């Protein structure tokens, strides 16, 4: 007997609906086993997680606080991935966006009229992110430097640079020597929604997701990007300027992550300090894949992921389990969901030796 993966001729509607549901049930089942072994009631734990993430308006707003940076970085990563440009530098682009936004908020407050400060802060964040993604893009198309390495390495550069700034020259002189810049002037605060911590970043993310969806699906440029991702040779035959498109798309990708960073510092911490680079840019990669690079789906997946992060606290707070169980549980829930997407494009066939036609092992990427 032999198992092979076979690419589906056409992706059936059934598979698209059933696979995620089954994956999710498998996720819950695996998680339940883990919880039971750890001595917690799985149903109560899931209920506590669900309540913690979505149980009240306040909890939902906290889930959104987590989801906003995931949405923006998830959108950014999706654009790059569509062209098969492996931008895993969203974390660094976000961080540098936060740094540039902080510089604008603190240095331009006395120069600019108050109403111009916040837009400038956001613009600086986006420009810095665009630059940080544009450099690896240029290196790739002009000199063939592998982008996986450059984008990853630039993360460390950005994160260490930001630390250097708030531990060193930018340290708040009135902060008793503790790390962190001075608080931003109020004109640089990104407004929050009602009395929650969720901020305008949510509106940016929703509007930008729609715009991106339209651009990618309804414009010539979106079409060009897709061709570049699917078949570089064809793109060249069609006379598409690959170098220019890659750099442009990566600038957009980085600008989105930079925007996420600017929103975090201007909307949440209102100063540059520890706690900006906490892995949103990496989680964004999972978000992008689970959303299958669809900008609108990124929004929903980011909310789910935010819920998982926020609900995960409850594993400790309500159930009294160690933090590690919460993290393993999050991993166990994600794994089948990512693995499941394989089954929407491939099908598993069991072949018995005597009847086997020559095996068709597909190795193409999905």
């Amino acid at each position, binding site marked *: 007997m032999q198992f092979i993966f076979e690419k589906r001729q056409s992706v059936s509607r059934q598979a698209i609906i059933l696979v*995620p549901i089954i994956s999710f049930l498998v996720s819950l089942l695996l998680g339940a086993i883990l919880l039971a072994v750890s001595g917690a009631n799985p149903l109560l734990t*899931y209920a506590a997680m669900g309540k913690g993430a979505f149980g009240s308006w*306040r909890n939902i707003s906290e889930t959104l606080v987590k989801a906003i940076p995931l949405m923006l970085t998830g959108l950014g990563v999706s654009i790059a991935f569509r062209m098969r440009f492996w931008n895993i530098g969203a974390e660094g682009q976000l961080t540098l966006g936060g740094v540039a936004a902080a510089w604008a908020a603190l240095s331009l407050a006395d120069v600019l009229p108050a109403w111009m400060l916040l837009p400038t802060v956001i613009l600086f964040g986006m420009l810095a992110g665009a630059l940080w993604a544009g450099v690896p893009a240029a290196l790739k198309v002009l000199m063939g430097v592998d982008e996986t390495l450059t984008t990853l390495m630039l993360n460390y550069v950005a994160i260490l640079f930001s630390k250097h700034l708030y531990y060193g020259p930018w340290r708040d002189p009135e902060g008793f020597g503790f790390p962190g810049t001075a608080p931003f002037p109020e004109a640089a605060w990104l407004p929050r929604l009602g009395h929650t911590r969720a901020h305008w970043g949510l509106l940016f993310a929703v509007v930008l997701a729609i715009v991106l969806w339209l651009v990618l699906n309804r414009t010539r440029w979106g079409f060009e990007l897709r061709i570049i991702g699917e078949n570089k040779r064809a793109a060249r035959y069609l006379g598409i300027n690959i170098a220019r498109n890659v750099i442009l798309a990566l600038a957009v990708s980085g600008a989105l992550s930079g925007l996420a960073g600017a929103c975090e510092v201007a909307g949440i911490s209102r100063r540059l300090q520890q706690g900006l680079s906490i892995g949103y840019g990496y989680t964004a990669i999972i978000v992008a894949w689970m959303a299958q690079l669809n900008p609108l789906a990124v929004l929903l997946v980011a909310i789910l992921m935010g819920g998982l992060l926020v609900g995960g606290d409850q594993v400790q707070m309500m159930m009294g389990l160690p933090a590690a169980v919460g993290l393993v549980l999050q991993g166990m829930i994600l794994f089948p969901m990512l693995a499941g997407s394989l089954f929407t494009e491939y099908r598993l066939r069991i072949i018995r030796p005597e009847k086997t036609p020559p095996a068709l092992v597909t190795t193409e990427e999905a």
Partner: protein
Amino acid sequence: MQHKIGHVFSLALVLVILLTSCGPAAAPKEEGAYKVAFVYIGPPGDLGWTYEHDRGRKLLIEELGDAVETKYIENVPEGPDAARVLRDYAQQGYDMIFATSFGYMDPTVEVAQEFPDVKFEHCSGYKTADNMSTYFGRMYQPRYLSGIVAGKMTESNTIGYVAAFPIPEVVRGINAFTRGVLSVNPDAEVRVVWTNTWYDPVIEREAAVALLDEGADIITQHQDTTEPQKAAQERGALSVGYDSDMRAFVGDTVLTAPVWNWGAYYVDTVKAALDGNWETHQYWGGLQENVVLLAEFSPKVPQDVRDLVEAESQKIVSGDWDVFCGPVVDQNGNTVVAEGECMADGDMLGMSFFVKGVVGSISED
């Protein structure tokens, strides 16, 4: 494209149905019990900082019994994320919340504003409010005493200090330790390596190994693991612990350790709240209050050193003298505190220079 949106949407739907159909999970609040929550930076099993806070929490249960109900959450990152955890406890009806790391300061201020009826206790910061106090200990005092032990017992005259973050608390500890070392051994030097971590066993071990390679024969540190001490032991070197009595976990190569003793403070503070006497305060207790102390000596520490430490300890407890009483000279030879004067608490809390005898620099300024 529509298909994929449908796919994610249906997934969201299933999640919501599954999670809402399971009913309420929160246990009803037990009438009468005073609910106290602790927010930890690391796991209670770190055998260091969080371990000591959790020992304090356990003493609270032991002393006050059914009058209190405690919960804790571990591994909460510093920064804005902590606000969510604090808010969650406040919402669940906790009466008092202990936030036990410096980086929780701004989030605690923020949440304290939203919940005026909940009392917040922030460890090691400097911001207070009507319902928010700070508490900390003069760890620099036992640090100084442990420096005397190290200064007496080093043979290579090089002592390695694995330092956490370049913030005043850590700088103060390095300076106090170094002053202790130099008070008995003017030829010794204290080499500093920063890790920018509170709890990262791998990085902290590597830093200790680097210092041992430079010739250090005694290692001490400011993080919350026992790894630097273990690394020293494996090389046949000695060490001074921190946070908890690390000798119990590593062995007699740990000569002694400046340790925390939060239990009494936690019991007093919660009792005050139960009696309605809690007021905003900025607690900074020292050797005298027994909130910080020096752990028992290893058998390797000779009697004359023990006697010397005891005498110095008496000087501090009596209030006649403190670690940063002049003359205090910085790394560049400038006198920071003149003879006959003592450094004020405010200056100690914001300390950002190294004293003479320290080899290393405080990040970039």
